[in-house]
């Protein structure tokens, strides 16, 4: 189909001659995915149909207590200080952003009156600014009105380095100005196709200006409201005991009619994930348990028990457990650093070795025996939402093919069964963090490699070292002083993959100069990739932009920079009676106001 024809179709939807559904069906017929087709429409200014919520309760309140169990407890209640998702979840009970991400990666307005787009004049055609219209009649829990001043203040607060906000990265590249009491304009320095960063989702929760105004900058820690949040959310604050408990009660003046359902909310923290799963699924003591990092086998057993009181809820996410190939030489020191960009990996500089390795990862076994429903095999590095998932890649386990590739490239088996070429033996060190599923995966890969004449030495590093930014420690993932390594990236994540795909651009290569803070540990450099990435940064057409990201994914996978293993899922345990929609692109509490219990 040509662009012209597509334009005609869109026009007929606009004019009402064709239904949205018919358009989407037609697009699917052409091989596009449904969310992608919806996005084409959204870009053309045809508003998305309001998400169908099958919300049953007829009035607010009357739902009793909602009991939530977190095996890591929230330690603070200021969204701009949140270190981990547990903190953000605690804040999300009381605070709300302008818009949230639903499970399909679409924006849903919360404090905004509508989602800005090109058609309603919200998003500037040149991508240099976006106008947010705020919802009318929203009140803070203390009765003060919520206005544009609050929104502007949040930008000032978070972007001030002295405040030491963890959200500074989402705010500092923009400037925010008030247009009128109910609208603000966010300006960017350069065309920004992904404008839904500040004020959206986890990093976008809005704190009240009148309580934090005096505590912007160096004395941010002294604000009393850090411990006693006053937000706009469905529940208002009752009690907080850091590292243990958050309690709230129904906000009677909530800005959505007949919401929320529960009278009180309680978020208990501490303990471990397995017993948290038991408390929801087996004994029913709690309604919901967060982040079930539990072997799927155990979850399945609990759920299938005859009198199970809960179930797991699994949603898509971007998390990708993957193996990285080092493009630099980890065994030679240059200017005081190993894996220096000035070196080339002696074995991986031969593409045959990289391709062979990709054929030796038995993803199916990893899924069935280790991750179960919580990790699904994939050939892509960039997974989800569907519009960014490449359909061009495939993966296989093929030891014969790997052997053939290596043989052809001149890697001959030695007397010990290990292949060698020009005196270089195919011996690799494979590092990962200490974590039972990872050690099992390592063993599976090692076994297959042995059959192909590659000798893998397995190394595991304690997680607190491996994932730290400790400059002095040689065993961190960013230093990558081994041949290959494996871990998960992409949880938590926002739907837009720009920052996610940044980990392969040449200017992000981790090195001594940037204290190994660069996002690219593989030290892969590819001019074409850099070029496509830069193009995507400025590409305003969402369809073309998605294509560019798909292209980037295909490049890193085909070139053997990374070997994707499984796409991780986000898992929570939920009581059988509780109706809750979770999203892999936002906090679990993104839609807390619609949670209810069936009788």
């Amino acid at each position: 189909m040509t662009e012209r024809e597509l334009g005609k179709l869109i026009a007929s939807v606009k004019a009402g001659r064709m239904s949205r559904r018919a358009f989407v069906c037609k697009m699917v017929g052409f091989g596009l995915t449904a969310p992608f087709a919806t996005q084409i429409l959204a870009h053309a200014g045809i508003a998305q149909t309001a998400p169908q919520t099958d919300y049953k309760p007829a009035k607010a309140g009357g739902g009793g207590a909602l009991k939530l169990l977190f095996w890591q407890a929230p330690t603070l209640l200021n969204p701009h200080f949140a270190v981990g998702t547990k903190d953000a979840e605690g804040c999300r009970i009381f605070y709300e952003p302008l818009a949230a991400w639903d499970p399909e990666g679409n924006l849903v307005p919360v404090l905004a009156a509508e989602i800005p787009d090109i058609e309603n004049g919200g998003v500037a055609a040149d991508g240099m600014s976006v106008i947010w219209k705020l919802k009318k009649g929203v009140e803070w829990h203390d009765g003060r009105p919520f206005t544009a001043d609050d929104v502007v203040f949040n930008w000032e607060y978070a972007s001030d380095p002295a405040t030491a906000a963890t959200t500074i990265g989402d705010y500092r590249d923009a400037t925010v100005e008030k247009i009128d009491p109910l609208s603000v304009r966010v300006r960017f320095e350069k065309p920004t196709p992904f404008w839904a960063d500040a004020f959206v989702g986890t990093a976008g929760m809005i704190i009240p200006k009148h309580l934090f105004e005096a505590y912007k900058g160096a004395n941010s820690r002294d604000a009393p409201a850090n411990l006693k949040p006053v937000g706009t959310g469905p529940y208002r604050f009752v009690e907080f005991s850091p590292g243990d408990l958050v309690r709230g009660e129904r906000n009677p003046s909530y800005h959505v009619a007949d919401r929320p359902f529960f009278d009180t909310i309680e978020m208990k923290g501490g303990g471990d994930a397995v017993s948290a799963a038991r408390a929801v699924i087996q004994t029913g003591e709690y309604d919901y348990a967060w982040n079930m990092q539990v072997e799927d086998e155990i979850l399945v057993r609990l759920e299938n028990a005859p009198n199970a009181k809960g179930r797991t809820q699994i949603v898509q996410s971007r998390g990708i457990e993957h193996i990285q190939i080092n493009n630099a030489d980890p065994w030679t020191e240059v200017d005081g650093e190993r894996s220096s960009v000035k070196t080339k990996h002696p074995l991986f500089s031969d593409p045959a070795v990289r391709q062979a390795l990709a054929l030796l990862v038995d993803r199916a076994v990893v899924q069935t025996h280790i991750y179960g429903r919580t990790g699904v095999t994939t050939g892509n590095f960039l997974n989800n939402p569907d519009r960014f998932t490449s359909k061009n890649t495939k993966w296989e386990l093929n030891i014969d093919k790997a052997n053939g590739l290596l043989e052809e490239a001149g890697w001959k088996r030695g007397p010990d069964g290990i292949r060698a070429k020009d005196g270089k033996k195919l011996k690799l060190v494979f590092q990962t963090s200490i974590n039972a599923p990872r050690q099992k995966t390592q063993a599976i890969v090692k076994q297959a490699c042995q059959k192909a004449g590659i000798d893998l030495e397995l190394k595991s590093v304690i997680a607190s070292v491996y994932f730290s930014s400790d400059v002095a420690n040689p065993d961190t993932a960013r230093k990558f002083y081994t041949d290959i390594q494996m871990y998960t990236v992409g949880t938590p994540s926002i739907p837009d993959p720009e920052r996610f795909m940044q980990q392969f651009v040449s200017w992000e290569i981790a090195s001594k100069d940037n204290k190994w803070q660069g996002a690219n540990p593989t030290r892969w450099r590819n001019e074409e990739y850099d070029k496509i990435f830069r193009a995507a940064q400025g590409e305003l057409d969402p369809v073309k932009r998605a294509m560019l990201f798909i292209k980037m994914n295909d490049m890193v996978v085909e070139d053997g920079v990374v070997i994707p293993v499984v796409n991780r899922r986000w898992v929570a345990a939920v009581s059988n009676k509780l109706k809750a929609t979770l999203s892999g692109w936002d906090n679990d509490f993104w839609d807390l106001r619609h949670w209810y219990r069936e009788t």
Partner: protein
Amino acid sequence: MGRYLLRRLLIAVPSLIGISIVLFAVLALAPGDPFGELASNPNVPPEVAAGLRAKFGLDDPIALRYVRWLSAMLHGNWGFSFVSRIDVDTLIWRRLPATLLVIGSSQVLALLIALPVGVYSAVRRYSIFDQIANLLAFIGFSLPTFFTGLLFILLFSIYLDWLPFVFRTDLGATGWHWYWEEFKQAVMPVAVLALLQAASWTRYVRSSVLEVIRLDYVTTARAKGLPERMVVVKHVVRNALIPVVTLVALQMPALFGGAIVTEQIFRIPGIGSLLISSILANDTPVIMAVTFVFACLVILFNLVADILYGWLDPRIAYR
């Protein structure tokens, strides 16, 4: 006496400084940093974590950081948690009640079991009662708390469904109902800790009573025609308990330290679980403060034990 106290307190100062140096150095050399979670989140640029490190002074040399910490501590400023940005003393105060309640009642329960059982098995040495008490005591202190804790949860919460296994500080109940709920949730952790403690104390009481019961003055008391009950309660137990009292005093710091593992298993928001979560989050100021408080308590209660011993046993003199 006054001079003795003064000397002991003066000796305590260098040992506390030594302890704090060791603690600080170990924590500073240990891998990991409080903003690790930010560093592995692709949505947060790496400079954010680096900026926070710089702002909280984590990149300064260890010696400088130690001096800064020490001088703040001497001014009564315990610093603030890197993770929650709340003052450390507030955090500790909030956690004290739960620890005192659970650990305190477990110690009381342990004493209530250990004293009568220990004395009775010493008096009726090698009787059936003594044999059974011994057997149970050995089982008691060879089972670690994390194991008995899990066993209790499996049995009482999951199979029988009698007791909750998540400890809550805010029970949605009032009046008598509140006490009942509190009892229900505290009984498992208290029992787990009390059984371990009672087992070892029983053995201790027994042997100390055995030592005294053989002495001549006990024989004299019996020869005077005092009833056996009176002999045991008034003459034997009184003297036999002197070493037990010091032992209990020495155990007091553990009371504050909480039973770290038990608190974690039952989700009791006490000092022990605060320590564990701070260690996992590499929250140096909190770990430092909690461990330092423990060190102070150990030194203090050693002193208390010594003084108590001298007061109870006039043969001991302070010099």
